[in-house]
């Protein structure tokens, strides 16, 4: 009886996919990821193939999205740049989630640690993201690893804060006290009774961080403090194209659109996840 009642309720996936915008966003980000992953199958050119004679050719049959100042195919570079930009976003989202969960749980559960950790988190949140990232990259040096480290440091407080707040709420709930009263160890309570109950806000926030990190990487590269300029990312492509804005605006248009579409898609997916995971909103959809 109760079991059949359960199956009547729409599953999480059904609720998520009930929104057309989420389906489109999933399609868009899926296509972008697919194209980046299989870049070498999807383009006739090599990444570093130069053809000075054909520099700054507008989009056409040979160069679908035109060629840049060195005669490199923009479409090819866009695909390979996608590999880097997307992986930076994904890795930053993963690392900052892991660190944020650890810091947030410790701060939320052990109030002595909270005094220290929260002040650090507050101080970091008070700093503009991009400035903090620039300062960190300047200190660490501009490489892909350092960008990932810097952005992870920048976004860890966002997750930490959410986890800390959720910990505060959940640790006071009766089932956590009941678990303690029945001899469950602290780490088991942290993982099974606290963390398991805050998976959804973390997932939603991690999706947003994926998007923010891609955007920040593009910003850093555009400002010239990002990855090595020889490494193609959507940000470095815009930075290079900037110099030819008057003759070849398509140079920044393609990577600009790629960033916009990816970030927008991730944000829509994040919103969709949040609503689908919230049982009160999910019922209305």
């Amino acid at each position, binding site marked *: 009886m109760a079991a059949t009642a359960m199956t009547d309720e729409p599953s999480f996936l059904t609720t998520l996919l009930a929104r057309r915008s989420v389906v489109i966003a999933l399609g868009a980000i899926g296509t972008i990821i697919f194209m980046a992953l299989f870049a070498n199958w999807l383009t006739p050119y090599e990444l570093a193939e130069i053809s000075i004679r054909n520099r700054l050719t507008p989009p056409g049959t040979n160069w679908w999205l035109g060629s840049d100042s060195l005669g490199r195919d923009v479409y090819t570079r866009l695909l390979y740049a996608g590999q880097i930009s997307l992986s930076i976003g994904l890795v930053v989202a993963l690392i900052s989630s892991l660190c944020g969960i650890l810091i947030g749980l410790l701060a939320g559960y052990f109030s002595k640690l909270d005094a220290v950790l929260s002040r650090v988190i507050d101080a970091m949140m008070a700093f503009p993201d991009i400035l903090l990232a620039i300062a960190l990259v300047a200190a660490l040096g501009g490489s892909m690893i350092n960008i990932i480290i810097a952005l992870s440091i920048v976004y860890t407080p966002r997750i930490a804060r959410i986890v800390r707040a959720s910990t505060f709420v959940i640790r006071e709930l009766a089932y956590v*006290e009941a678990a303690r009263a029945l001899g469950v160890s602290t780490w088991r309570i942290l993982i099974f009774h606290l963390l398991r109950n805050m998976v959804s806000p973390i997932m939603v926030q991690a999706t947003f961080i994926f998007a923010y990190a891609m955007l920040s990487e593009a910003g850093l590269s555009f400002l010239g403090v990002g990855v090595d300029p020889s490494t193609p990312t959507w940000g470095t492509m815009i930075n290079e194209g900037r110099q030819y804005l008057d003759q070849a605006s398509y140079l920044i248009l393609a990577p600009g659109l790629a960033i916009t579409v990816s970030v927008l898609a991730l944000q829509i997916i994040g919103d969709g996840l949040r609503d689908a995971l919230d049982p009160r909103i999910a019922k209305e959809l």
Partner: protein
Amino acid sequence: MSDSEVILAISGLQSAFKSRSGSVRAVRNLNFNIGAGKTLALVGESGSGKSVTSLAIMGLLPQAGYIAGGSVIYKNRSGELIDLTQQNAAQMRKIRGREIAMIFQEPMTSLNPLFSIGDQIGEMLLLHTDLNTAARQAKVIEMLELVEIPAAASRFHDYPHELSGGMRQRVMIAMAMILKPALLIADEPTTALDVTIQAQILDLMRRLQKELNMAILFITHDMGVVAEMADEVAVMYAGEIVEQAPVQQLFKNPSHPYTQGLLKSIPGASGIIRSEDGKLQAIPGSIPMLNAMPEGCSFGPRCASFTSGCESSVEMKATDPLHWVRCRRTGENAYV
């Protein structure tokens, strides 16, 4: 107290909370014993220190709370006497669940919504025994049958939200009892349930108590439940016990004005004292703030029999070998 072997002896227990204006004592100089297979009911209104007492025994006082003195001697399964106030966190963890278990007032929120009830009951076995998955599952189903959950085997994978409040409290009881603890602390386990379910749960607890020869510390403010469950009653007021007696004695001859007030405020309780006009009576005022305790008898300001002598401190006196009262005027003729 009784003829059974004492398994929990609390003496001089003091527990306090740190606050900005210094520390306040929530439990003052508490003494009681519980014998194996017996039920001691700890009765009192909200804020009287009942729950703090149970948390102090379990070593689960909130961060600001601490034990300021006294001892909680527990006789464990191997017959050793251990002072629960002196155990470290790891030792207490082994005692909780296995030796002493606890059930709470809120069956609706005492279960983790993300785990099936089978997994949650099984967690106890996972933590405290070496049984494998299949053996654990068999044992959990056996326990679910013992707490009278119908179609136990098919309920194993149900989630808490699929069960009613009464069923959830049965699950909590199954969780608490699966390791056959020697002492169960029940903190108002039936308060949130409706009356018919309440009776079933109390029946179940009594039956399991008999089967396991388990002692129960039953915390409640409901005198009706006390009459049904308890062997002995300790009435708490403002952090101390004001009257303690075997249950029949207490209902027949309540001696402290506060106990009398509690009994007069129960509707329709038969065979116990009523006020002269047969109306329900409320006790005027409310329990004193912990940081503003009155001088002498803490019940003084609310007591109809208050005299100037009540302003100096008062000790427990025996009116009968098993009946102890903390009231200066006990035995006086003039007194209500």
